[in-house]
Each structure stands twice: as C-alpha cells, then as structure tokens.
C-alpha cells in the first residue's frame, strides 16, 4: 500500500542458495535492516546486467518473524532481460542491494472464501499468503498450475502443509487447469489472488468478468515480464527525435529509447501506471501488449502502448519459430 511503500535500500548477504525446481533457485537472504515481510510483499533488488545496475522485483516466499531471514526464488528465464541470469550467479556469502519488503499485493483478512492461483514461478507470490490463510483457519483453495512437476517449486512442502486445500494442475500430465470451471466455483464473497503468466491471468480476468463477479475481488500482481508472444527483436523509431533503435530480446523498448537518448517518463516499469505511454504513428507487425493499464478495447486499437513492457512482434502464432523471415517488426512512435 502506498502509505507503507517507502523504499529503504540496504545490503543483504546471501545465506544459502538451493535449487528447488528445474531452473528455479531458492535464495535465502540476511538483510542488514530486517523488517518482517507481510504476505504478498516483494523486494526490489539491484541486479547487474552487462555492468549496468538495474532494478528487479521478487516476491518474498518466506520471512522469519523478525524479518532477519527473507527467502526469494528466481527462475532463470532464457529470454529474460538478464536479471535472472545475474541472480543465478549468486553464491552463499555474496552481498547485494535490496529494499526492505514492499507491498503491492496485500492479502485482506476477513473474506468469506479465498482462491489462490499460482502459475509456474508465480507460486512465489502466493506461498506466504497460503501459509497465513491456513494459520487463520480461513476457507481457502490453493490452485497451483505448472508445465511439469519438475518445474514446479515447493510442490512437496505445499502438499504437506495444505493437504486437501491444494489442487495441482500439470500440463504434461493432461490435467491442465480449466479456467472456466475454476471461476464457476467462485461466489460473490470469494476473493481470488493470482500470480502467473499473462495468458493465465488474462483468461481468469475474462472468465471473472463474464461471470459478473466483483472486479475488486480479483487480485493479481504483475511483474510485467510475460506476454502472449515470445519476445522478438524489433525496431523502434521516433522520427521527431531522429531516433531509430533496435530492441533486443532481453531489453525493453523503454530501455532502448533511454539508451538512444530519449528523455522518457515512467514510474512502475511493469505495465500498471501508464506513465510510459507512447503514441503509435505507424506499425509494421503487431503489438504484444503486456500491460494491465489499457482495456482490451484500447489494446486492440493499437494507438498507444506502454513501452516499459509491451513489444513488437511479427509472429502470427506467438512462437518465436514463426517470426517473419522478412525482418523484425517496426514501431514508429512519438513520445511526450
């Protein structure tokens, strides 16, 4: 919540690193100025990418009562912007710069019923909430969706702690989640908290709206790092400023524009606030809107985009293999 979201930067020491699923590292941190992490909170971390310091957010999976021990988990995303690669190089004894826990995804105590929905590494935002709901003896179901069991972190621990309250869906076992069925089980007093890939969250949002459930009861956190399409390299042009820049797979359009010398306005850098909005003048290809700022109508109109997360693509199917051989997408824009 805004009132308590003052960034307090501090050093933290890596106490332990452990692999908890395919490509997912559990990293235990000992901060210098401990503060207990509430369920739903995250920390911002300074990561080093090609010698440059950048900020990334990771959910707090576990926190000791006094906050002296914080656990995050990081998935090595092959097409990430480079932050997860850095995080995967960390070893016990290393130090890094982190904030005290910040809160954008507060759990409200007192709802009649809860559904917690985690897709893949999104489980990191949900683990702590589930633990608190259990200790409050709340009525909750934890739904955990993944590609395959080996890629699903904390599965055994969650099974042990939550027993019947945990429902697992695994794609390669043929038990993929049917979003409509899940949302059909939600009532007017149900609050649903989710974190996962944008496809999953979009599907849930659509089903939620169709059932005419209260939108504020649908809670989600975005870190702005997943889209409907695989990221491709694309070109951004700003004729008024004489800029033409290539946006690599691991970079955002906002970063590319900043590198090219454009004076950009932004705040959240995760597709929520809309401050990084740019006007699209011409489009060769399509836009993979990865923000939650625009409505579906606005996204379809493709007149504006949030350049901190959204990207240009040529592939019609979404798979990188189907990217157009005739070259990258080109987005011609103007900025404020």
């Amino acid at each position, binding site marked *: 919540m805004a009132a308590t979201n003052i960034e307090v930067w501090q050093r933290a020491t890596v106490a332990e690193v452990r692999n908890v699923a395919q490509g997912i590292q559990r990293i235990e941190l000992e901060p210098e100025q401990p503060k207990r992490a509430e369920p739903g909170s995250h920390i911002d971390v300074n990561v080093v990418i090609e010698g440059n310091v950048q900020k990334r957010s990771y959910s707090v999976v576990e926190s000791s009562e006094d906050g002296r021990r914080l656990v995050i988990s990081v998935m090595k995303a092959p097409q990430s912007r480079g932050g997860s690669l850095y995080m995967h190089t960390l070893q016990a004894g290393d130090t890094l710069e982190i904030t005290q826990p910040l809160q954008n995804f507060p759990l409200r*105590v007192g709802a009649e019923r809860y559904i917690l929905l985690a897709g893949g590494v999104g489980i990191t935002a949900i683990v702590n909430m589930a633990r*608190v709901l259990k200790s409050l003896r709340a009525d909750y179901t934890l739904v955990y969706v993944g590609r395959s069991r080996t890629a699903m972190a904390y599965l055994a621990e969650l099974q042990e702690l939550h027993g019947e309250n945990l429902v697992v869906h695994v794609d390669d076992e043929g038990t993929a989640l049917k979003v409509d069925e899940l949302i059909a089980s939600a009532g007017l007093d149900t609050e649903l908290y989710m974190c996962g890939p944008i496809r999953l969250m979009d599907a849930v949002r659509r089903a939620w709206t169709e059932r005419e459930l209260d*939108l*504020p009861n649908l809670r989600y956190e975005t870190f702005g790092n997943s889209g409907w399409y695989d990221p491709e390299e694309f070109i951004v042009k700003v004729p008024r400023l004489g800029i033409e820049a290539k946006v690599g797979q691991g970079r955002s359009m906002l970063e590319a524009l900043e590198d090219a010398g454009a004076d950009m306005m932004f705040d959240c850098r995760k597709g929520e606030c809309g401050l990084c909005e740019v006007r699209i003048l011409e489009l060769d290809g399509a836009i993979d809107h990865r923000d*939650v700022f625009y409505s579906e109508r606005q996204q379809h109109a493709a007149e504006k985009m949030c350049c901190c997360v959204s990207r240009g693509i040529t592939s019609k199917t979404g798979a990188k293999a189907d990217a157009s051989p005739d070259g990258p997408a080109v987005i011609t824009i103007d900025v404020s």
Partner: protein
Amino acid sequence: MTVVQSQSSTTNKVLGHPLNAWYVAAWDHEVTRKPMSRRIANRPVALYRTEDGKAVALADACWHRLAPLSMGKTIGKDGIQCPYHGIVYNSAGRCVSMPAQETINPSATVPSFPVVERYRYVWVWLGDPTMADPDLVPDMHQMTSPEWAGDGETIHADCNYQLVLDNLMDLTHEEFVHSSSIGQEELSESDFVVSHDGNTVTVTRWMLNIDAPPFWLKNMRDKFPGFEGKVDRWQIIRFEAPSTIRIDVGVAKAGTGAPEGDRSQGVNGYVMNTITPETDRSCHYFWAFMRNYRLESQLITTQLRNGVHGVFGEDEAMLKAQQEAIDANPDYEFYNLNIDGGGMWVRRLIERMLVAEGRLATSA
C-alpha cells in the same frame, strides 16, 4: 542459585502505544454515511458506514496523492470517493473506479482496518490484521447490558494516553482534584490492594463507616429517599490492556455486608473508561457512567452524565497542565510512590506488549 533479572522499572514520561490492540475509534452514533476523520494511534483514519450500516475504517489518505478520503463522499453500496480526482474505493480499501482511465491499477488500495462494533463503540485494529481477533475486545459489557443504564461522552485530552491511565489507576487524587464532589480524606488514608495477571491489573479500596461525599449522598437518596447516615464505600479499579479501565464504585449503608458481597443496601456504578491514543501527546478519552438502579430514569442518566462531566473536566485541566510541565522540563524525571502501584503494573504490561511488537528495546 538462579538470578532472575527483572526489567528495570522504567517510568516513561511519554509512553508509546501498542498497535496490535483494539482501540475505540468512535461512539457508534458518531459513525454515519457522512465520512468523518479521526487520528488514532498516530494514523488518520476515515470512518463511515456502508448502505447496510456496517462501519468501515480506511486510512484517511488516498493512494494517489494522499488527499483525505474523509473529505469525500460515500458512494454506492459500500464505497467512498476521493474528493480530489475521484478514485472510488470499496470498504476493503480497493479501488473500484479510476475516473480518467478504462482500467484499474491493481496496486491501487488504501489500508482497510479491521473493525468490530461492540458495547456502543466502533473499535479498530491498526496493527497486524492477521492478529485482529474480535475476542480480544476489552470487556465493557455494562454498556449494553439490560441490567445497567447510563451514558457518557468523549474528552479530547491534551496529554499522552498513559497519563490518563495513571490518573484512573490512583484515585487518591480525588481528595485534591475533586474535593467538591467525590473527594474525601479517607481516600488517601485508606489501604488498597493491587493484583494483576498477564492482561489485567486490579486496585481495590474499601472505606468503611464514613460520611458519603455529596455525589454519593445524592445517589443514595435517589434509591433510598431521605437516606441519612454512614456508608461503606468501594472503588475497584480494573485495567485491561492496553487502555481500558472500568471502575466499580459505590456506597452502601454502613455495616450491611457490602464488603462481603451483599450490595443490596447500596448504589452501584461503573465508570467505563477507554482511552485511544491520538498522537504521542493527545488522546481520545471515551467515558460513561453506568448504574444498576432506577434504570427507567432518564433524569438520573442525564444528571449523572452532567455530574461526571464536571468531575472529569477537573481531571482534563490537570492532565493538560501536567503534560505541559513534562514538556517544559525535559530533563526532569518521574518519581514513583507507593500509591502508583496500580499504574506501575499498567506500564509494565504495556511495555511488554511494545517489546513483543519490537517497538521497545528490552533493557538488559
């Protein structure tokens, strides 16, 4: 041999307040569809009722630019609209509409504090919401019991809340501060007994075979018209952490067995006090006087409320002057007397709560 080191008896002049506790935010009748603002435990809180009459407590600062929501208006079933750029929040503190855009930023929330309505008060919990157990609301059942009648008021006291607790835990001050109504010299002459457990402190004082002071003589005559003679008088002060004090008070015809438990020949009142810290140097002091005789008489209810209003006005002036003297003499300490026994246990229990919240260092 084991040496047990007890915490040194710090006598904080400006004591912090626990956050993991229920505090009275307002009388039930104060909270309406029109939002109001009250600072509670240093935090401005907006209070209003939903269409269904449920009391709501939100942080009184909009997520966007921190404009006070209490200046806005209630809207829809349970919402409140920020007076500045029109963001609407529901009773859970979640944004339900952002006027200037088609979507809602998922981060847009204001803290919504747990609320319990009980004993004619709206109680709020500003600390860790996962600990907000309604069973922890202090016992003030006389406020709503059919066996008791009465009413009260709120004093805005210009002092740290602990000074009010000190005041109520030691009633020897009545002889000096309230000499015209309830004070009498037997108060400071008579003995008292202090007891405590993990959450409560009790101070019991009996004064046997004394003249009833004016306030009590009137009450006796309300029940026993024309009463003359000596009385046995009692004051049983019961503190419940962190800041509720009920005082069982009364007088009975002397020698009729009141100390042994038969109060039928007397009149009994309960002074209900619960104090909500506002800032470090001010508090909301909610009090009421309840009685268990002549329940039907609104006249007596009003007379008692007005009478206690006068008595507490004397305390209010003293507390304000005391706080000013404390602030004007930052280098002078508090010293403690035997009569402070109850108040010192109160401090000890509150300090333990603060330590448990990590908000007071344990002295080694």
